[in-house]
């Protein structure tokens, strides 16, 4: 691919995802990370907001740290569809030329990101868990020190089911695009009254053969709480043994005001819905405390929870792989330990 006037591209942009005219948490997480990158580059952070009647959302983006918000407000953008959204985002990129464009690795972002990156002919790194500014190559090739490029976005991502880690750069094309897994980056504290500069941009959205018709939108019922938002997760696996036994886990979670989650085995046994599954094929979580109870710790599960601040594992098998990531590992019978722990915690909290 050809170099394309890279120096024209300035600023860190994030795609501010909204669904039903409500901003997704990932938008704020991306702003949080973008602020760090922008500081290193000496530039500012622009949130790109696409939708219909979404101008009311710009204040919140400002309060979470966006310096500018570019809004494309168009009735075609009412509900997410690949083509009009890709047209709008590509138009923003072509017009405002960001050096970095971050998108959430959500079911929307993982469709919009690749479509737009191909449309503007740049690279895209998927599902990043770490972003930083650095040099490429990381170590200059001896004798070719002047070919080393500085101020590059270095995008780190797991691959191979979390078993390998690669750091990727996009040195010759702009913008440098990445999708970022939800729950990995930290949002900044909300600063009430902080304002972003709002730029309204109205590109023409061309109606072409690539539009699809939405016949129906069916929202999942009873899926209001999200394990990704919980500060404490009490997670159960095959060892819990039955749906009824999950009550014990719920009791423990209640002590902390936390939630119950689970491994794939629990979903396969029909003990909990897939919405509560942690891991490769479920959700990536990062609570302050993660209890892994009766979970052996298959690599696919660990990939979804290892970033938790504190991991406590309870398992009767002393060789269970979960112990290799646990801060505190308890070998023993969960049926005895969990209820006793719940009671002890309740007693401790009462004494306070």
């Amino acid at each position, binding site marked *: 691919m050809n170099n394309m006037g890279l120096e024209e591209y300035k600023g860190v942009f994030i795609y501010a995802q909204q669904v039903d005219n409500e901003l997704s948490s990932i938008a704020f997480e991306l702003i949080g990370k973008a602020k760090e990158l922008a500081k290193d580059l000496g530039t500012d952070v622009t949130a790109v907001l696409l939708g219909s009647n979404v101008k009311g959302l710009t204040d919140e983006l400002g309060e979470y740290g966006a310096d500018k918000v570019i809004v494309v407000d168009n009735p075609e953008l009412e509900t997410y569809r690949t083509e009009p959204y890709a047209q709008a985002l590509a138009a923003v990129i072509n017009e405002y030329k960001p050096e970095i464009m971050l998108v959430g690795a959500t079911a929307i972002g993982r469709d919009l990101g690749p479509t737009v990156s191909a449309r503007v002919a740049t690279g895209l790194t998927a599902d990043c868990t770490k972003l930083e500014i650095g040099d490429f190559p990381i170590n200059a090739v001896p004798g070719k020190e002047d070919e080393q490029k500085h101020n590059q976005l270095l995008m780190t991502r797991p*691959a191979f089911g979390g078993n390998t880690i690669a750091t990727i750069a996009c040195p010759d094309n702009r913008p440098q695009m990445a999708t970022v897994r939800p729950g990995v980056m930290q949002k900044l504290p909300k600063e009430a009254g902080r304002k972003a500069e709002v730029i309204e941009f109205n590109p023409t959205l061309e109606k072409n053969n690539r539009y699809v018709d939405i016949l129906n939108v069916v929202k999942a019922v009873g899926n209001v709480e999200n394990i990704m938002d919980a500060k404490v997760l009490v997670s159960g696996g095959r060892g819990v043994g039955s749906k009824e036994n999950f009550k014990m886990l719920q009791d423990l979670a209640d002590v902390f005001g936390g939630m119950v989650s689970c491994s794939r085995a629990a979903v396969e046994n029909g003990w909990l819905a897939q919405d509560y599954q942690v891991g490769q094929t479920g959700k990536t979580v990062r609570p302050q405390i993660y209890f892994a109870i009766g979970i052996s710790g298959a690599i696919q599960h660990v990939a979804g929870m290892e970033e938790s601040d504190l991991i406590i594992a309870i398992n009767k098998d002393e060789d269970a792989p979960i112990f290799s990531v646990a801060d505190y590992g308890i070998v023993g019978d969960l049926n005895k330990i969990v209820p006793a722990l719940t009671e002890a915690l309740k007693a401790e909290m009462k004494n306070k």
Partner: protein
Amino acid sequence: MNIVVCIKQVPDTKGGVKFNADGTLDRAAMLAIMNPDDKAGLEAALRIKDQNGAKVTVLTMGLPKADAVLREAMAMGADDAILVTDRVLGGADTWATSTTIAGALRNLDYDLIITGRQAIDGDTAQVGPQIAEHLGLPVISYAEDIKVEGDSVIVKRQYEDRYHEVKAKMPCLITALSELNEPRYMTPGGIFDACDKEVTVWGRADLKDVDDSNLGLKGSPTKIAKASDKVPKGAGEKVNLDPAESVAYLIGKFKEKHII
């Protein structure tokens, strides 16, 4: 109706990932399988074939040994197979890969292209939508269900907390989720036939309307700065006590950490 299913050969991570003594991945010890999302896409195509009649072609880009997944696909019921392989295509990122596959697809008649959502080795979910972009086709990602209705497809498109029922006119591209279906097994007779069939092999010269500057490692805008196998997080403390002592131990730790 012509359906092309794009499939990839990937190392199997299901039976546990194997490591070398130095902690690096032992790729050679892992079986090479058809990527699960792709297999679901193939099954979806075969069901359309069973119900409406269709010719199903499978296409893969990879090393010559990727022939194995094409044979598997034919043993399941695919009619034709194409292997795109060439040294100059190696080291491709998703841009260069999708450019290559689009270049191959331009030689074919298709009404529907199905890819898996993502491969279990790269996990990017990018190649499907990018092929659609190169070919100027409508794309529906994350398909949970696919129905053919006249000249259109009706797809259940999955999101985190909902699905959209989406209608697209063919030709179009769909990316399939492994939740879509339970793929069928091969049959013994299908295996024997598949091994006797010809697999069409295409190289760089067979790609249509593709510029060299967009192919292979050189044509990949993303470059690997550093790659390593993951070093597992170090284990903390592990105790094996009776239940009451275990609880006391944890309460002590919670106090230490000011959690309670």
